[in-house]
């Protein structure tokens, strides 16, 4: 084992292999966090739609969740990157193929975001559905509209209940971001593999990447647990676990 390889000047010239690792980490974080923002917003809307009493609103959300959950992420990645520019209207397709800035990066973000949205939607839905129906009735009986019931009763409770499952989805998005390497995003796993190919220091390269993923997991877990403790409803849900 010889970790000094990371201090050697990289093959491409300019910078060391450590710079490759740092750049890979940066792209992993960027893809994951931007995708999470999309997933959280889209997933929340879909999750709420799936709990509404109107079938017109429920059905499309259900179809979305079923489609995005039952196609592998890799296939979705290829569809965003290779297929979408061909089937959208010509002008937009040309823009995506020639003038779109960083097409690999943005397609990876969109793909991962909309994929994870389907999983977030399921968590939000089950969170809202775990609230006793009596709370909805009480809200309606007090003269709140259905929108106000969501805004003041269901969502404030629902989001606190789903923090633990959302934490694990948030952790999954960092791991899933490695699939972006298949369309050419040089994130952490891709950089680790590249370093191993240039230096034959496979063990060192993969070890460093693994350690960084574990660190990301630790930071996210601790951060989310702090948040969970902060917003916990007293006496409603059990403590944040061991």
């Amino acid at each position, binding site marked *: 084992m010889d970790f000094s390889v990371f201090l050697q000047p990289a093959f491409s010239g300019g910078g060391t292999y450590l710079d490759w690792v740092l750049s890979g980490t940066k792209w992993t974080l960027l893809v994951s966090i931007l995708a999470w923002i999309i997933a959280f917003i889209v997933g929340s809307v879909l999750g709420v739609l799936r709990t509404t009493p109107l079938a017109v609103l429920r059905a499309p959300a259900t179809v979305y969740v*079923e*489609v995005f*959950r*039952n*196609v*592998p*992420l*890799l*296939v*979705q990645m*290829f*569809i965003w990157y*290779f*297929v979408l520019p*061909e*089937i959208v209207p010509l002008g937009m397709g040309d823009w995506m193929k020639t003038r779109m800035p960083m097409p690999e990066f943005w397609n990876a973000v969109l793909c991962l975001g909309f994929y994870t949205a389907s999983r977030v939607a399921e968590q939000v839905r089950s969170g809202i559905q775990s609230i006793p129906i009596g709370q909805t009735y009480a809200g309606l009986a007090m003269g709140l509209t259905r929108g106000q019931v969501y805004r003041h009763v269901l969502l404030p409770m629902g989001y606190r209940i789903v923090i633990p499952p959302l934490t694990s989805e948030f*952790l999954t998005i*960092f*791991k*899933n*971001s*490695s*699939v972006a*390497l*298949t369309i050419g995003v040089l994130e952490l*796993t891709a950089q*680790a*593999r590249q370093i*191993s190919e240039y230096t034959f220091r*496979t*063990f060192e390269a*993969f070890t460093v*990447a*693994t350690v960084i*993923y*574990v660190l*990301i*997991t630790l930071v996210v877990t601790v951060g989310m647990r702090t948040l969970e403790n902060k917003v916990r409803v007293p006496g409603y849900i059990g403590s944040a676990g061991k």
Partner: protein
Amino acid sequence: MFTGFDFDVISRSLPYLWQGMLFSLGLTLLSMLGGILLGTLLALMRLSSFTVLSAPAGGYVNLLRATPLILVIFWFYFLVPIAMKKITGDAYATGIGPFYSALIAFTMFEAAYYCEIIRAGIQSVPRGQGHAAYALGLNYRLAMTKIILPQAFRNMVPILLTQGIILFQDTSLVYVVGLTDFMGAASKVAQRDGRLVEMYLFAALVYFLLCFSASHFVRRLQVRYSTGR
């Protein structure tokens, strides 16, 4: 929109795609089997009161669950040949072929996830069952294999199968090491014939139909298993 499509490319390459599908299904079933066996072992270790057993199992599970599957596949592609050289003592051992390397990677990776499912399943069996077994004079092995595990697995069947569906989707990632699973076959045809749109949409459709019907089946099973107990 579909006017420029060449659906013939799909029917032309069906035998090749079928070979890929057999690879995907074989890899899924075998690594599911291996993952459940190894996962049960890990779960029993994690639940053990001996730290010397529970700590390594816990460390393994947490490490694997924090690492992306693609990185794990790369790890085992690198480690398996080295291990083979160590085991056989033959410096020119070339490994055991790509299928078995992938199988080992998926088994080791899925075992960590199955471990957590099985651990929860074992913990869902009322404590009294274990105490009753010991009171009747059964030892640990008999109490586990005759009393606790059968009940735990009965509760877990739907979630184990759901994990199997996720595993089936994940097998598409063997693409990164160039293996010809269903997705690998589709992408090779797509690139050879320059028919990316048709092939990738077809692959998505096939995966969707398979996984959608499988998860429907699991949901029906879940209803059946949750009643009548």
